[in-house]
């Protein structure tokens, strides 16, 4: 029979953390609504089946005859690990920073007579596990398909993901502490958020740009299997392939990778956990500091009620560092199509096939985020509601603020397209407008009062809103690409699907009391 761990021990804290994380997970999946657990289980079961089917289709004929010792396979597996690692680094940096800055129960823990080192050691360990979970969910289907149809040894991919999750946590911890010491508590939060966004998107984008330069192709996998990469990469006996060999199930490389990564994490915990409390206390002080805005003299401007609302939204969006870091990743994804436009100057095929759909998709997703902030993330909803302004004008002003921000962001890219192909620019503008308006309308239908800090969790508040926002952006992106490529006769089907998605979303919208 298992004994309850002693209060204040590592095991006791670990159990406490596990309980909190589990409840957090259930709340996130069920959007805080009781009785949804069964629906979540059914949804997850379906998701598992669909992702495995997709993985099988993706791997196609290659399963069953994979030569794990070939340079090409080692290169592809290593590339996948590197891509996954960049995502894990991004997530770990965010989680580590959040541990520094979120007060939650830290006031209680730090003021209690327990050994705080244990709490932080458990929390860092929990970050490593949380960081590994998402890639395991994302790539689990690929690993399973390989294990079933090729060789069971591919299951070693799971411990390798955990090993790199631990490494990402260790590096993130070191970076965060280093920045804390050099930049101070106040600047570290913003800096780590920006670094997390850049790291998360940067590697993928870098590979895409390299693929565009070398292959005139945006595919990451083509790049890993290219002759250029095969020529540059070291021989198969090199230590660089250790993680890839471990993933393929070679016991020695697997254990070595696990040992090295976990040892680095253990070392970081030993070094930093004892001082974690000091950083948390230092970070707590920044809530008391005040930022002074220049100039020190403000002359009130004559503005209509509508423009007052629009300017307020823009001012808040510009000053929202959290939003900037969160949106940076989406904006960064516009870099490869922009680069492709620059490289493929005059090539209509590259514009229509790749650049325009990505542009439309990114604009739709960005509009959804901004619309959530402006509509649901209103900090003073009671002030706005009690103002002598018709409800319709408030909504219109917020929608205008969102669409105006999108227009400013995509304008330079549209100018670039116009130089190459004026008609393509008009089609892109129409696609961006349609995707942005659709995403904004969906956020409007599913608006629910929330704190701006909950921006990261906006996707869990309504699954219908999240999926319809994504599907409508995909449909508009597809339609834009088809029209630009001259297949305008197919595009009405996608436009119809986009409207169908909107109609379904609208019929699922919750009823508002006021």
């Amino acid at each position, binding site marked *: 029979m298992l004994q309850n761990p002693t209060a204040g021990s590592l095991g006791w804290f670990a159990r406490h953390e596990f309980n909190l994380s589990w409840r957090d997970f259930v709340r996130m999946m069920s959007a805080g609504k009781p009785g949804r657990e069964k629906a979540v289980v059914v949804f997850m079961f379906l998701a598992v089946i669909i992702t495995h089917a997709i993985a099988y289709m993706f791997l196609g004929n290659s399963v069953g005859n994979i030569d794990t010792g070939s340079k090409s396979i080692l290169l592809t597996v290593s590339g996948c690990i590197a891509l996954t690692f960049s995502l894990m680094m991004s997530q770990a940096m965010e989680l580590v920073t959040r541990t520094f800055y979120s007060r939650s129960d830290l006031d209680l823990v730090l003021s209690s007579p327990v050994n705080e080192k244990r709490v932080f050691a458990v929390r860092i360990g929990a970050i490593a596990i949380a960081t590994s979970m998402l890639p395991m969910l994302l790539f689990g289907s690929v690993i399973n398909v390989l294990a079933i149809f090729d060789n069971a040894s591919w299951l070693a991919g799971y411990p390798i993901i955990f090993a790199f999750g631990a490494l990402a946590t260790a590096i993130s911890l070191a970076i965060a502490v280093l920045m804390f010491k050099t930049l101070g508590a106040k600047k570290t939060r913003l800096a780590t958020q920006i670094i997390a966004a850049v790291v998360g998107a940067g590697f993928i984008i870098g590979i895409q740009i390299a693929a565009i330069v070398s292959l005139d192709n945006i595919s990451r996998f083509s790049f890993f299997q290219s002759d250029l990469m095969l020529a540059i990469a070291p021989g198969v006996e090199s230590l660089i392939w250790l993680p890839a060999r471990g993933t393929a199930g070679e016991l020695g490389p697997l254990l070595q990778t696990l040992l090295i990564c976990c040892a680095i994490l253990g070392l970081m915990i030993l070094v930093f956990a004892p001082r974690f409390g000091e950083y948390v206390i230092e970070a707590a002080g920044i809530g008391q500091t005040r930022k002074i805005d220049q100039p020190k003299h403000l002359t*009130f401007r004559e503005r209509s009620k509508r423009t007052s609302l629009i300017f307020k939204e823009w001012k808040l969006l510009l000053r929202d560092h959290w939003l900037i870091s969160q949106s940076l990743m989406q904006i960064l994804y516009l870099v490869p199509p922009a680069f492709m436009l620059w490289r493929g100057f005059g090539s209509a095929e590259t514009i229509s096939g790749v650049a325009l759909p990505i542009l439309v998709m990114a604009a739709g997703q960005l509009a959804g985020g901004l619309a959530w902030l402006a509509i649901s993330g209103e900090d003073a909803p009671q002030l706005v509601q009690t103002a002598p302004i018709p409800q319709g004008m408030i909504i219109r002003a917020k929608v205008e603020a969102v669409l105006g921000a999108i227009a400013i962001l995509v304008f330079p890219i549209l100018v670039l397209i116009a130089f190459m192909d004026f008609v393509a620019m008009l089609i892109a503008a129409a696609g961006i407008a349609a995707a942005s308006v659709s995403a904004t309308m969906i956020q409007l239908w599913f608006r629910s009062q929330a704190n701006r800090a909950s921006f990261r969790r906006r996707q869990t508040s309504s699954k219908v809103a999240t999926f319809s926002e994504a599907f409508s952006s995909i449909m508009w992106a597809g339609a834009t690409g088809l029209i630009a490529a001259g297949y305008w006769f197919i595009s009405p089907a996608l436009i119809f699907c986009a409207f169908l998605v909107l109609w379904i979303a609208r019929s699922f919208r919750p009823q508002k009391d006021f």
Partner: protein
Amino acid sequence: MDFALEVAGLAKTFDRPAVNDLSFKVRAGEFYALLGPNGAGKTTSLRMVAGLLKQDMGTIKVFGKDTVTDPIAVKQMVAWVPDEPMIYDRLTPLEYLEFVAGLWGIPAKEAQKNANELLDWLRLAPHAHERCEGFSKGMRQKVALAGALVHDPKLIILDEPLTGLDAGSARLVKDVLLSRVEQGCSVIMTTHILEVAERMAERIGVIAGGKLIAEGTLEELRAAGGRGERSLEEIFLELVGDDTFNDAEAA
């Protein structure tokens, strides 16, 4: 007699009746305190007056204008101050006041004059260009109050405005409210601090179970039940009974 606020037969039901056939009137230029135990329906009633909730039944008139048929005209005259100050962390107090004045359509020159006076009065002038994100609860409440007053409302509705304020800030807020009443403004306020209601309010309404159970000046309340020289706290407890019962019911 002019009435700033006329509430008649007001009712609102959520999963249970929160406000049930509530009627009362606030005179123009009067300071009116609405008291009641937790869950009595005070905040729900005031939210309906401020236009934040739609009533199921009944009418609400502000200076003769109906909140349902003429909501914009009513809102133009009203200011709402909730217990949790709702301001923008990333705006400075001056920017916040500029925004509020813009929402109420106050000419820029007049708004700037009002804003500077209010910030001086509420001792926020040294912090006028600092973002509100680092402000204490008291400072935030003062910024929210300045926002409520910058458009010169005729009726100010306050829901527990003194909660969490230190003695100095509470005194300042009370002084500002009394001075507005002296200038002809009407104030309706809920509070759990009965001494405040006793000292500041001209008339007091006691609400329980969503209904008005007593109303009048302190002397009238004392006289109504033959309560002699008893304090408002004693009268209140006698009227509403056991607070614990109401809390459990509200929960």
